[in-house]
């Protein structure tokens, strides 16, 4: 059974595994405001999408990074604050990138192990560069005096 990994507490970075819900995702050509929208990785983001009840981005392959850029644009350029879900080829080892690009839920195929996936969400305590979850790069946040 596919499952859903979802952020349950943003500030404390808590995640949990839940049974997969099935929103009625609409593609961009049939979508209307207030309903869930599903985007392909090669689609252009648009400002009206902020009014979607949730947005899913479908990854055609786990090595395809286009969905990461699309997520960053939706979050940081268009200020979409609703649920942003990764669907399609979601691989546990890409989760930490996805989280930092602004995804807060993942549809995990039944060939993946949810426990392993949960353990791959944050393998690093901090990162050098800015991200959606941490818009300030380390050099603005961390005192890194010479040899500190």
């Amino acid at each position, binding site marked *: 059974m596919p499952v859903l990994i979802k952020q349950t507490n943003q500030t404390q970075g808590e995640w949990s595994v839940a049974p997969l819900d099935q929103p009625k995702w609409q593609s961009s050509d049939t979508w209307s405001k207030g309903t869930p929208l599903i985007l392909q990785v090669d689609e252009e983001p648009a400002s009206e999408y902020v009014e979607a009840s949730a947005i899913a981005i479908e990854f055609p392959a786990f090595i395809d990074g286009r969905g990461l850029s699309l997520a960053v644009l939706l979050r940081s350029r268009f200020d979409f604050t609703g649920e942003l879900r990764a669907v399609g080829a979601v691989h546990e080892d890409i989760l930490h990138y996805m989280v930092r690009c602004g995804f807060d839920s993942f549809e995990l195929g039944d060939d993946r192990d949810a426990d392993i996936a949960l353990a791959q969400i944050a393998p690093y305590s901090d990162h050098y560069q*800015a991200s959606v979850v941490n818009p300030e790069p*380390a050099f603005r946040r961390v005192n890194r005096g010479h040899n500190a």
Partner: protein
Amino acid sequence: MYQYDKFDHTFVAERVAHYRAQTLRYLDGKLSEDEFLQLRLRNGLYVQRLAPMLRVAVPYGTLSSDQLRMLAAIARKYDRGYGHLSTRQNMQYNWPELAEVPDILEDLASVEMHAIQTSGNCIRNVTTDEFSGAALDESVDVRPYCEILRQWSTSHPEFDWLPRKFKIAVTGATEDRAAITVHDIGIRAHRDDQDQIVFDIFVGGGLGRTPVVGVLMISGLPVEHLLTYVEAIMRVYNRFGRRDNKYRARIKILVRALTADGFRDRIDEEWMHLKSGPSTLTQDEVDRMRLHFTPPKFDTLPDFTDALAQQRLAEPEFSRWVKHNVTPHKAPGYAVVTLSTKVTGIPPGDVSDEQMDCVADWAEAWSFSELRISHEQNFVIPHVAQNKLLELWGAARAAGMGASNKGLLTDIICCPGGDYCSLANAKSIPVAESIQRRFDDYDYQHDLHELDINISGCMNACGHHHVGHIGILGVDKKGAEFYQISLGGHSGHSGIGATLGQIVGPSFARRDVNDVINKIFDVYLANRTQEEHFLNCFKRIGLEPFKESIYASSD
């Protein structure tokens, strides 16, 4: 040199732990071959023809003596006692065990090294001028900016899963020793008329199957905007670069499809949103990085010109070495030394663990424990007092690293080729060796002046054959190894961008390569004006005379 702080140590330690866990999941059957492939590539591990190959990052080619000693120790402990200097200034091991790689990474981390992003479709190790911080013709020491780019690109959330690999090179000198215009992004740092450091950014250069010289996207970019501008380039590429065909996936293809002006418009549109945002570099950060690269405390040395001339007169072999392998230094009384790995019978770039230990010792004794790897696959000892040159030369000669051939025809750039690499169409090392044997005579080499022979075993062009004065490319003809020869390429120098070589014609069997090279030399020697180097001669007389001689029927 850059020294890790707590932040760097923590990150690299977590990276090792993360990779160890991924390796264990693979060995445990929890990750498929294809899945693990993508993960190990992002940590420099290829599976090659004979064994895995681990590529260790040497950021911008700079190493300390302690780091090189660790590389020697790794060669002894996990490999067969040698390593290979790559054309991207990295160190490669050809025989590690896959299961032991996490242990190697842990050893590397103990000396502030790693193998992060040395392969895979991500931003690779940033390369630069191997003489940075020492070269007389340098206006900006670019290593602080290379380190800024290294940190920014490390595990970038958005740009680790690009359409294809991505290479950045930076230079701050008149002579472009980093070959910036044949990289995905090439950065030239210089000073504007207010003496402020600024960057000219080139995009879309590259070798490989479709060699292209990069085009200038912006000139005079202030330092603070470096990361946001590069981020804009990367986002356009990540979103719009082709992913349907790996041979059409490099950024150069996208630049060509959109045209340079069209691509620039896309970047500008993206940059508008990022410029002056949080990733804008702060003066504090730039200062912090510059502090890591303050010049060593050079001694005030007495003028050694006359004494060196005496030493050279007394020892002709030393004199040759000084002529070819010693380069002027910006500090009076100092010199930059290149130690050639190009010894006949040894694959270009291969160095033994003992040699690594020796080079580490010499750098410690005579160069503030600092050394470099050049893209020509040689070691560089950057800060040597001129009055120590003779001693260093003696030591280098005893260790088999004293060849006086930097820039000469036997200083061949060569990829591992079909002996090791599973991508290769043909072997390259035996071709290099055979040329070195045939044209070993120093006087002949010297008479030919500076001459770059670059050899790649396949279209991927790791041996940079497109920019060799003579380029040799291994091709497969119905299962047999053949070699295509091109002439007139160069990687850019004295402010002139790179030029790609022109193919002479149909390819040759390996046994004929030396004769063809010999004919090329003959045409050059017969046509050159006094002191005219091969490249200039080629530019003047063109391809035709070479073609005629090479393909003239023998009857």
